[in-house]
């Protein structure tokens, strides 16, 4: 009984950590521009697919990963430079549609550059399950959780302690105000896309040994990541992780105790109920609306 519950919990933690990593990238771009980047899932896909193909070329994993992250970050900067910055003061919805276009474009490029097959990355620390009280978990799940934790700490430090991070937050509060005090808006945007693309790529690479990857993998990761980020409270890294864990555990418990067909629905019902009582997510600030 206990071991069954524990197994469901482990399953939920694994899923939750994956969603959390997918969700973190949303908060960075949101902080800099209030835009939901619908191409965020594609950054995860690019990271994983690039790693797969670099490893296929004979590179060791330790070298392939940083290269893949750099590729994804470059794609992020290019997206910001050629599609988001030129849109200037377009409405948030317009920029969101641009990111939808970008996600279609990136999937299209991926299927031409790579292929339409599924690919697996080797697990970082083997596949011997860790057993606790009769329930098991793969070492890779711990990697995913560890990387999520490291990412929140790094983001907390970035937004709280560094000039670039503070500038980003300033832009999110008031674009004009930030501009007046000399914050280079353009550079802030480029940095935010580079950061979230790089972080997304790391996430995509760490989860690939569990979920596999393909040119379409970003769709599911993007949707779950968005859910996690909104449930947790947009722009809040800790919130995204908490949101991811809630969604993941809800899915696993529902599959375990209720019905596997309705596990995703259960997760969304929980999100709706939470938003009903906390309209700004679990950890979101009650923002004052500009009049």
């Amino acid at each position, binding site marked *: 009984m206990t071991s069954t519950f524990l197994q469901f919990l482990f*399953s939920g933690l694994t899923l939750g950590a994956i969603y959390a990593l997918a969700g973190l990238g949303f908060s960075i771009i949101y902080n800099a521009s209030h835009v939901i980047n619908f191409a965020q899932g594609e950054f995860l896909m690019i990271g994983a697919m690039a790693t797969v193909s670099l490893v296929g070329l004979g590179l060791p994993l330790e070298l392939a990963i940083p290269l893949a992250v750099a590729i994804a970050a470059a794609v992020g900067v290019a997206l910001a430079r050629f599609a988001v910055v030129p849109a200037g003061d377009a409405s948030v919805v317009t920029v969101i549609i641009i990111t939808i276009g970008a996600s279609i474009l990136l999937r299209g490029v991926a299927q031409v550059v790579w*292929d339409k097959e*599924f690919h697996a990355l080797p697990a970082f620390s083997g596949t011997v399950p860790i057993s606790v009280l009769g329930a098991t978990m793969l070492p890779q799940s711990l990697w995913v959780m560890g990387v999520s934790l490291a990412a929140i700490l790094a983001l907390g430090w970035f937004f709280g302690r560094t000039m670039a991070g503070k500038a980003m937050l300033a832009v999110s509060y008031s674009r004009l105000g930030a501009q007046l005090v000399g914050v280079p808006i353009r550079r802030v945007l480029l940095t935010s896309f580079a950061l979230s693309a790089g972080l997304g790529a790391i996430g995509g690479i760490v989860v690939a040994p569990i979920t596999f990857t393909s040119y*379409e993998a970003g*769709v599911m990761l993007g949707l779950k990541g968005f859910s996690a980020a909104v449930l947790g409270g947009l722009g809040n890294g800790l919130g995204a992780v908490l949101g991811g864990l809630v969604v993941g555990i809800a899915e*696993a418990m529902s599959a375990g105790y209720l019905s596997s067909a309705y596990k*995703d629905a259960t997760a969304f019902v929980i999100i709706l109920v939470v938003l009903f009582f906390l309209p700004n997510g679990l950890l979101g600030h009650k923002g004052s609306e500009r009049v």
Partner: protein
Amino acid sequence: MKAYGSGLRTTLGAGALALALVLHPTAPDAAEPPIKIGAVLSVTGGASFLGDPEKKVLELFVDRINKDGGVKGRKLQLTVYDDGGAADKAASFTKRLIDSDGVDIIIGGTTTATTMAAVPLAEKAEIPFISLAGAVVIVEPVKKWVFKTPHTDRLAAEKVFADVKKRGLSKVALISEDAGFGKSGHDQSVLVAKDFGIEIVADEVYSPKDSDVTAQLTRLRNAPGVQAVFNFGFGQGPAIVTRNYQQLGITLPLYQSHGVASKEYIKLAGPASEGVRLPASGLVIADQLPAADPQKAVVTTFKKTYEDTYRMEASAFAGHAYDGLLIALAAIDRAGGTDKVKVRDEIEKTANFVGTGGVVTMSAKDHMGLTPDAFHMVEVRKGDWALLD
């Protein structure tokens, strides 16, 4: 608007061509109109690993046959549309093939849903249609103009249950994907289980893109009396099921469906796939078939041709497209032209056609023409298939 303009031009062009043929009834072979083959495939989207090889096969072999002079002196002209796995797009593109491109025969419908969207259109337009999808509903009840090349999910379930029975087991737990292929396979499994004296003791589902199914597998493991597990699905899902199965340390026999009969599955699932059994067509185990097997020559040649060109494994799905194309062309050859009624009749008369999926003999009552013998039971051993029967 441009599309309509060009459509109009093609129509006019075709009209002019028809007129030219009427004016010159003894036109030389070169002026013979091409045989138009249309295909609607899921080249992108969730089923792209099925549709993409199907498209590659059609392109490769149409090109080769044309180089060899075509069929009855007429060249083949192939039009492929990608429905992205969406049923309504498949319907639109089928209309396009029928009304705008004026094709003589349609191959495709990668998935059951896209096929079923196209079926009423083909029936209404009275145009021969060869589906590449799995479910029984495509050919049962028999539809006059609709045929299919892959084995049905029912055949797969029967093959698996026969093997379960042979092992002296009778209590099976099902875990299936809650999308088209898995759901249809699940329903057929439940239907035929009784015939083999098999009891379904647990029944779980997962979504095609789920990352972890240990919760569902834990429930299966806890089902009272369970002796074997049968997973119906394709793509990454079955590989995740297999890995989670090992992670949980479940030692019951695990069966997969023909949906994962490619090396890709073994590659994705890794060592966890050792000992997994599944029904597979001759193509999958081409090199292990005994030399006396009627399929040996066909599957070996097809495999070599495809793999030399594309440098990737020829999956069973690629084979389905090959079988569909060859059955169609053989029928056109026997019919002496592209008269749709005659071609349909000839497809129905297909007998002892040796394809990659098995030996096909169709009839007015059977528009697939495969028997359970078309499947071989295989087991994963040391990262490769081992032939069991």
